[in-house]
């Protein structure tokens, strides 16, 4: 075991992913994976990643170096999967709105490129305190990844707000959960990479895990609890004159 941990630590490390596995099983039974295959794959992958890292951490014959090497691999794969999930959320928002699909994809790609450049710039100006490249590099990469992910998820919300798109419940729940995790983890990792924290930053680790726990609970709520059916009410129409409008349109077309 690399470090001895408290009961709270063990709970916060494992509980969210056990909950996540249960969520994945329930969603599979409901056929949810057909509509959100990437997010479903993320649920499975994240659980495997967490259990693997947990096993490496508690097993007595593993070293810190092997832990961090495995962490690097999971960091890269996990980052790519999360980017794919954000892309899936955007597609769910724009797929049925053909007028926005192309423009949405283009601006999303531009935002991604811009944010990547920003993340690289931020990383270049960050001075990590940890002398070990495995640890410092991993934290820097995490910080950079979260910069891009925060920016992209904010972009999705801004796009929906500007064009007054209505979210479906599942898409909104997934996006909200990820927003909270990305923003909190970005703040946490930025502090961890730059400052030497007391007790190896255990408070921040607990905070990160607790935030992820909240995120999984949010997903459970939005994905499992059915939406209340809204009362169907007819929209009142403006008091206007259709005949005059048609006449004016014909006049404009004849110009």
């Amino acid at each position, binding site marked *: 075991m690399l470090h001895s941990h408290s009961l709270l630590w063990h709970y916060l490390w494992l509980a969210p992913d056990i909950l996540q596995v249960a969520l994945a099983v329930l969603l599979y039974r409901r056929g949810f994976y057909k509509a959100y295959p990437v997010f479903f794959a993320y649920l499975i992958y994240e659980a495997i990643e967490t259990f693997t890292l947990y096993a490496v951490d508690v097993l007595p014959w593993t070293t810190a170096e092997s832990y961090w090497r495995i962490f690097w691999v999971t960091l890269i794969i996990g980052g790519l999967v999360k980017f794919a999930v954000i892309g899936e959320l955007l597609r769910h928002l724009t797929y*049925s*709105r*053909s*007028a*926005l699909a192309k*423009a949405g994809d283009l601006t999303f790609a531009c935002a991604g490129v811009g944010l990547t450049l920003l993340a690289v710039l*931020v990383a270049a*100006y*960050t001075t990590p305190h940890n002398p070990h490249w495995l640890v410092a590099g991993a934290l820097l990469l995490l*910080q950079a990844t979260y*910069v891009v992910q*925060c*920016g992209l*998820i*904010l972009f999705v*919300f*801004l796009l*929906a*707000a*500007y*064009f*007054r*798109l*209505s*979210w479906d419940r599942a898409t*909104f729940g997934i996006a*909200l959960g990820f*927003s*909270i995790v990305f*923003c*909190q983890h*970005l*703040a946490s990792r*930025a*502090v961890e*990479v*730059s*400052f030497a924290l007391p007790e190896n930053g255990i408070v921040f680790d607990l905070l990160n895990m607790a935030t992820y726990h909240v995120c999984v609970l949010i997903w459970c709520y939005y994905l499992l609890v059915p939406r209340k059916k*809204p009362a*169907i*009410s*007819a*929209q*009142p*129409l*403006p*008091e*206007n*004159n*259709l*005949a*005059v*409008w048609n006449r*004016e*349109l014909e006049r*404009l077309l004849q110009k």
Partner: protein
Amino acid sequence: MNLAIFIVIIAALTLSAILLLSVKQTLQNRQSVNLTGSIHPIDVEAFRNLTNPAEDEYLRRCLTPAQFRRVRRERLLALVAYVHLVAENAGVLVAVGESALAGGDARLADPARALVNDALLLRRNATMAMARIYIALAWPNSGFAAARVADRYEQLSGTAMLLGRLQNPAVPVRLSAMR
């Protein structure tokens, strides 16, 4: 200021923005009953006059360069106000269309979807037109075409009329003010 502290502040602001947008969206969905009442009537004729390149050419011939630049800037500022209203109306119609789709009435599905797509296209074009107008404000002698916004707006009004008739055949629909 340390970069890490700056990143923490940015992350907090980002999360606050997302939560505010979420709350705003939820409130807007609950207040979707009287959306059409918030549509601003627009004088399409006046709008077309402002985008007419022949008008610009006439003014360029009749006025001195300095006078033309001043008048063109005023026309462009008026145009920004119109295009902004068009974008607002398009946003309202997106919400109306989305609300009609959420209602589940199969009869309204196709016109509602068409309304949403037309309104989104118009809002997108209005955004691009506003960007071009602001560029033209910096360079008053340049030409641009915001006429597409007028054409799209008329098309959108037709789609809104159809949806309105399907929802309530007795009441006519109009999205622009007529003199």
